[in-house]
């Protein structure tokens, strides 16, 4: 059985694996485990791809360990190679991999942008966070203690995915990490803040899900008419700020 001929190598100071994702995308894998260093590499490459593109490049998607670059092979061939070459030897993937290898080697020279700090107001508990008592009970804490722990940490946005504007956050204190619900809910309202295992996050649109729901933010995370269309971006630092039910209601009313 034929496998993929992935390219593994060292490009300047960076070690990376270039894996084809089909015939019109390529995944640049920059590490093996989720950590700050790999994340910084991912940010560097993603920021580089915002500034410099190759012919036929469509877009890029940063993830925990990798950046995937989508391209139109026909345009890439025209821009980076010989467009008249339709023989079996035409290899747009190799041309794009070559461009990426050259650009990976240049990455060290580029300065990294300073992360943005975003504060998300959250009304914890009550009907907006129906699982707060359960989370508190699991850890033998009071509801107030869970709120204080959740709101005291700084979280890093590793990537966006799953739903528009959904941020995979790193940094949930272990003391409140809680397994998912046994039975997922059919619909969780947009803005709900939850915990699942060692992750915490905010649902940007109504979705079914099995997270433990501890609160809700009045702040929209998905902003279809804004550029970019999300409150959070990969690389951001996030803090949650507890607000009262009155403030939550007032902010929601202002939005209408």
């Amino acid at each position: 059985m034929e496998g993929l001929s992935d390219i593994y190598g060292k490009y300047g100071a960076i070690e990376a694996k270039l894996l084809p994702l089909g015939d019109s995308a390529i995944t640049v894998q920059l590490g093996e485990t989720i950590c700050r260093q790999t994340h910084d590499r991912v940010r560097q490459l993603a920021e580089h791809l915002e500034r410099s593109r190759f012919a036929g490049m469509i877009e890029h998607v940063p993830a925990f360990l990798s950046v995937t670059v989508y391209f139109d092979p026909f345009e890439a061939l025209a821009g980076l190679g010989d467009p008249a070459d339709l023989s079996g030897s035409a290899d747009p993937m190799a041309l794009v991999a070559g461009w990426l290898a050259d650009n990976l080697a240049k990455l060290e020279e580029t300065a990294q942008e300073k992360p943005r700090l975003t504060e998300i107001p959250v009304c914890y508990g009550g009907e907006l966070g129906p699982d707060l008592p359960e989370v508190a009970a699991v850890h033998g804490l009071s509801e107030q203690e869970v709120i204080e722990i959740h709101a005291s940490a700084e979280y890093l946005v590793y990537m966006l995915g799953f739903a528009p504007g959904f941020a995979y956050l790193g940094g949930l204190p272990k003391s409140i990490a809680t397994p998912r619900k046994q039975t997922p809910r059919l619909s969780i309202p947009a803005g709900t803040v939850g915990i699942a295992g060692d992750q915490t996050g905010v649902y940007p649109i109504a979705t079914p899900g099995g997270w433990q729901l501890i609160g809700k933010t009045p702040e929209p995370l998905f902003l279809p008419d804004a550029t970019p269309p999300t409150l959070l971006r990969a690389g951001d630092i996030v803090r949650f700020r507890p607000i009262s039910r009155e403030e939550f209601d007032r902010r929601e009313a202002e939005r209408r």
Partner: protein
Amino acid sequence: MSMIILKPGLLTTVQDLGRYGVQQFGVIVGGAMDAFALRIANLLVGNDEGAAGLEITMVGPEIYFAEKTLISICGGDLSPVLNGREVPLWKTVVAPEGSLLQFGPVRLGCRAYLAVAGGIDAPVRMNSRSTYLRAGLGGWEGRALRKGDRLPAGEPARASQVLAELLADQAQADGVAISRWSVAPELLPSYTAQPEVRTIAGQELALFDEDSADRFFGETYRVKTESDRMGYRLAGDSLRLREKRELVSSAVTFGTVQVPPDGQPIVLMADRQTTGGYPKIAQVASVDWPLLAQTNLGGAVQFRMISLSEAQRLYLIRENGIRTLRGGLERMQTSTNGRV
């Protein structure tokens, strides 16, 4: 120019080629399931390939054209009928003032694409006119079409007007005109009820036990009825990893075949999430995405392994064919320009 929806059909949505540039924010690509068919339909009415058209699923709508409109229907054969007369697919068609377009039984595939000259003038949201059903945005009010919707078309390009003029002398007594020109048969995907889909190795193929890999590329898989625009859930031989592994989420694309713990593969389609964490056993070659998009619920699919270089070669041939068609239509338009 506008069209009025008299009956909506099962699932009729406004789609273009998808929402690009915002996947990094978790926004799905969406767009036409069979993008090839929509591109061709657009070219045949003188539009840009990426203009918005209608994606018509299984049970077609009834559409009234108040004014004379240049249209094309491509993709799945849902027995389109214009003013009581059957219209062939992959042609340019003049629908005269007061025309009624209807659809009948499914003869082949499951999704037909209707392009109108000027494209459907739905608002652009995040770089695209595609309907994003789950978020309720884009397309026509973020939803499938309903009875009574009145969809405006954009201003037809000069190319559309020339094509309409070329068809003027072919009009029948009732005003319907059907082009003699069509699409070279060798350019069309080999649509069939049970396609053999050319597929290359997935990023995690090596994580599967040898038996599973052999079975995936040998057995027939049935498309389960709970499949939709997001993904095709397949039923067949269960696929197993060599050892249990937790993977870290990374980006996916159209035609990515991922295998959740129950061992039953899912092929990701137009409305897929941007990233996924299940191991990817295979990746359908771009050239055969239309075959998959036209496979019905309950239908069967076989995956045949090809090399990456073969997939690229097939893609380039297909794209070159589309450019040849576009060039041919453009030449026809300029040679007429001289005479008209």
